[in-house]
């Protein structure tokens, strides 16, 4: 295909362009289907019962069940273990939310300091930040656990919230933002007018930093909400889990995957699908609202951690 196309280019530009366009659309369509099918299925599965969900009973996997069934599955899910799903969701909101606030409070000033001020060991701090930010956060999870269990901060919300608040990538984003958009002259002018360093930061830098605050907040929240390993090892109690770890508990209570479980305390497959959907709903909503800025490529380098 490629070779044919190359030969066609100089002699016959029009058919080549046409062929190229068809090929491009075919590739996009194929992968769009790949990316969308699981999501579409996930949105529809909670409206069915276990039988309708089965692919052997003639129901199309992309048919809509009924709202009654959805309500029934919802009821089953929220009564499982006296509504523990609410506890898990609450934990997720609590851990990711508090961490988000702390992250913004320490990250934005640090990026500002690295970009706009001079201090001893500035370069060392910058290089260390870059190094640590490229380390996957999973790599630090066990060492953080070992450290925190040595100082007995283990099994408390702080054991998750404090590590969640350490976000070197956010510092890097803030550093890049301040160093490319803010002028030293502006800050100097304020200083000459008698503003102290703190005032320069809060009155001039902060109001201009809204875009990067949103960006850091976005990545911090999404990353922490979906984090599995750290809360998994840090929180031993079933009522301390964030919802992403709770999902694994639900999975263990699903007889289709674990037939040994007592039937009275179980979760069916549509309920498990509903739980999966509920567990990512806040992040999905954030994604939908950030749609415009997400697809522009402004977030370069930003999604991995």
């Amino acid at each position: 295909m490629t070779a044919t196309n190359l030969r066609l280019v100089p002699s016959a530009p029009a058919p080549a362009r046409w062929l190229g366009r068809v090929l491009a659309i075919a590739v996009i369509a194929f992968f769009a289907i790949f990316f969308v099918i699981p999501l579409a299925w996930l949105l529809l599965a909670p409206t069915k019962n276990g039988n309708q969900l089965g692919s052997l009973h003639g129901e199309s996997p992309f048919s809509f069940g009924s709202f009654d069934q959805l309500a029934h599955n919802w009821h089953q899910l929220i009564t499982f273990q006296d509504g523990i799903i609410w506890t898990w969701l609450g934990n997720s909101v609590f851990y990711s939310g508090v961490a988000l606030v702390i992250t913004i409070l320490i990250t934005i000033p640090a990026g500002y300091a690295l970009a706009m001020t001079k201090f001893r060991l500035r370069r060392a701090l910058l290089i260390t930040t870059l190094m640590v930010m490229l380390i996957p956060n999973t790599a630090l999870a066990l060492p953080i656990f070992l450290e925190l269990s040595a100082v007995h901060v283990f099994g408390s919300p702080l054991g998750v919230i404090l590590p969640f608040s350490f976000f070197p990538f956010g510092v890097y984003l803030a550093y890049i933002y301040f160093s490319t958009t803010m002028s030293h002259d502006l800050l100097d002018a304020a200083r000459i007018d008698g503003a102290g360093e703190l005032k320069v930061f809060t009155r001039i830098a902060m109001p201009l930093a809204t875009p990067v605050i949103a960006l850091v907040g976005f990545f911090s929240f999404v990353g922490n909400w979906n984090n599995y390993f750290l809360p998994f090892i840090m929180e031993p109690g079933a009522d301390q889990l964030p919802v992403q770890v709770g999902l694994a508990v639900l999975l263990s209570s699903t007889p289709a995957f674990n037939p040994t479980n007592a039937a009275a305390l179980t979760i069916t497959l549509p309920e498990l699908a509903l739980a999966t959907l509920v567990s990512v709903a806040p992040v999905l909503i954030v994604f939908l609202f950030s749609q415009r800025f997400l697809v522009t490529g402004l977030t370069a380098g930003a999604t991995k951690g």
Partner: protein
Amino acid sequence: MFSSGYLLFLLAFGIGPMIYALYLSFTANGAFAGVDNFVRVFHDFRFLPAVQHVALFVVVWLVTLIVLVTILALVVHAVRTRWLSTTARFLFYIPGALAGSASVLLWLFILTPSVSPVAGLLDALGLKSFTQIVSLENLPVVFTIVAFWTGAGGWIIIMYGALNTISSDVMEAARIDGAGPFKTAWYIQIPLMRKWIAYMAIVSLAGGTQLFVEPKILNLASRGVVPQEYSLNQLAYTIAFGPQADYNGSAAISIVLLVVAMGLSAIFVFRGGLFDRD
């Protein structure tokens, strides 16, 4: 001082854990133990298989990621119809919202023939049961599919952003010289994307070695067909939390993984040039 709060967190949750894990990995009951801990975990019967599992997955994952992300970014960038390009990027990206256990759980459904929306396709590929699909030799591909589904979109958008930085003069000159879209991609766009491809490769390589949540969830779902110590992080977890309760051995594995991650990030920070803003 504006950076003091961050500095504190960097010491407590970045540098501190590394140093403490280093200390644990070279000691036993507080006394210096040389490389004993490392020797012990390296001789664990589960260690070598875990290294092989992770290595195989990382190879399959990296090759797939690099080839497909490059192609998809070029294609999406070449599409002139604006809404189509924007929609495609958004659709590719949205599964990223499920990163973590949710995406593994969702793929559990997709790969279970009795409920899968693509049961026909699985059947056509000769895959009859979930247990067969998650057999040991299929796992690198299964994990690659899940990781690609959740992570590729973000990279495609990053590459798309990089392609946008290529000046239109260069592209125009290529067109005038008679280069078609394939030649332009091969001789102009891909060389200019190389830095970003390297970045993606390094970050994904470092991330791939950390494999944990995917085999963990599959282990729960497959009644042990996927072993409990499939990956290195799972093994480190079992050594610390299992009957051995061996924090020193667990720290030794963590140190091995950290050295790999640090080495990769050091290559990037000191030789990559992506961060040459200072």
